[in-house]
């Protein structure tokens, strides 16, 4: 989907679903994941569909991930930190109530 326009100059390593990802210092988690080819950030609780970032400015909440020690956060607003551990947001499937 995306590639880096420039090579990484100041590498920062973190884990996503147990896999090590190398990103540029100062990247948002969303940018780091997209550059690494990740498209599935969260699972929608209603229909278990895959979701990924839509707006990149903190409005849509499609980029939710779980950051160890912080809980559920927007990947487009949080920046990468060396050694952090991130998981995709599970989205427990809840059946829809009938009106």
């Amino acid at each position, binding site marked *: 989907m*995306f590639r880096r*326009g420039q090579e990484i100059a100041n590498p920062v390593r973190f884990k996503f679903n147990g896999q090590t990802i190398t990103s540029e210092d100062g990247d948002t988690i969303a940018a780091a994941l997209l*550059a690494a080819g990740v498209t599935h950030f969260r699972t929608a609780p209603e229909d278990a569909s895959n979701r990924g970032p839509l*707006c990149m*400015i903190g*409005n849509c909440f499609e980029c*939710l991930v779980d950051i160890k020690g912080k809980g559920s956060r927007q990947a487009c607003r949080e920046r990468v930190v060396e050694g952090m551990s991130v998981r995709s947001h599970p989205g427990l499937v809840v059946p829809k109530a009938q009106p």
Partner: protein
Amino acid sequence: MTHDVLVIGAGPGGLSVASGLARAGACVQVIDEQPYAGGQIFRASEKSARAGNEIRGWLGEEYSGGLDLIRSAKRQERIDWQFATSVWDIRCEDDHIELGLVHGETASITQARHVVLASGAMERPAPFKGWTLPGVMGIGAAQTLFKDAGLVPENGVVLAGSGPLLYLFANQLLSAGVRPGAILDFAAKWVSAQHLVPLTRVAWHSRTALLKGLKWRSRIARAGIPHLFGVDELEAVGKDEVQGVHYRKGGQSHQFETSLLLVHDGVIPNTHMTVAAGCDHNWLAQQQYWQPGLNDKGQTSQQGLWVVGDCAGIMGAEAAEIQGRIVARNIAGKLGLAIGKAEATQAQKDLAELKKLAALRQFIDLQYPPAKTFATPADDTVICRCEAVTAGEIREIAQLGCQGPNQARAFTRAGMGPCMGRGCGLSVSRLMAEVSGNDIEQVGHYSTRTPLKPVTLSQLASLNDT
């Protein structure tokens, strides 16, 4: 109260209002949730300038020009900068306004007599079949990745929708050596006869802007990128992520393979905060969005609450800067601060310039109206992405006599998810108006409750320590 004025947003509007007030002698605090100044248009401009990298060159003069504005604001000693800080609450009291802030793991409350909202715009949510698939994003979103992280789409990316941002972004991509697979343009190729009059009205004084648009388009053509005009329907297809796009043009269906579909249907004001603050809003029918009602000074219906820039109504970055200067003078007047002679002369020029920009905007708005297909999504299209509510469900409860968006929210859960209705608010109001046949002003919009941005219980608990 430690500050005379609090400014929310450090884009062109916020930077300009803060500079103007600081120069007049006021103590100002600027709050922005981003770690850098610049707003959406000049996003991460300081960061890329520091790195001295090629990315600035690819983004062009449009982007690099913002650095002067940022640097001149940063030289003002009376401005206190609060970056990486979100506003999650706004309350208008009798003689002051209170804001709830969160920075890192700490929440705090601050207040001032005057608050300026310069929180900008968001891309208009454009619901169509398949738009929830990973790999469908806003053009502005992809541009944000470009500015902030130097990420560029791979060759074959498809740009769809309408507006000048399509052409600007395609040019930025060509500079970066990226070849879009196609541009699916909802606009007509040429200005239609009925828009010629507004065009001639702005042609001379807006010639630079108009020529720039033509230059962008001709570069796309010269590069041999397929640029299709008059496209009127989209569908993203794929299993777990986008694999292609189906579109209609001239009554026929076509398709295109791609792993990234970027869509844009213009931008709309961020009215979440003005709605939460209880301000009056007007519906702008031509552009299909709500905007806060302002008096001729730039103040909302709430005493001491002012709005500048695109969150007051979409006028673009240049106008945001001018509005910032105007509102800075008006607030300085209220604070009893003297305004110099030079400033008074500038005031005249600013009003004249704003009038020209308004005429240009009127032409742009006519040429790039919001797409019909996104306003009238098919019944099986998801409109509330958080709660997976479809257009059909909203139509159904509207037919059953549901009394407006807030009741629809309670019935269907549309707008109850984490984005709090930012993504579906407009669609729900439009669908309910479509079914009931009522004007959208009668139908109304979602009400908004605190917190405006997510805050955790431990962040809230930290309020006791401050």
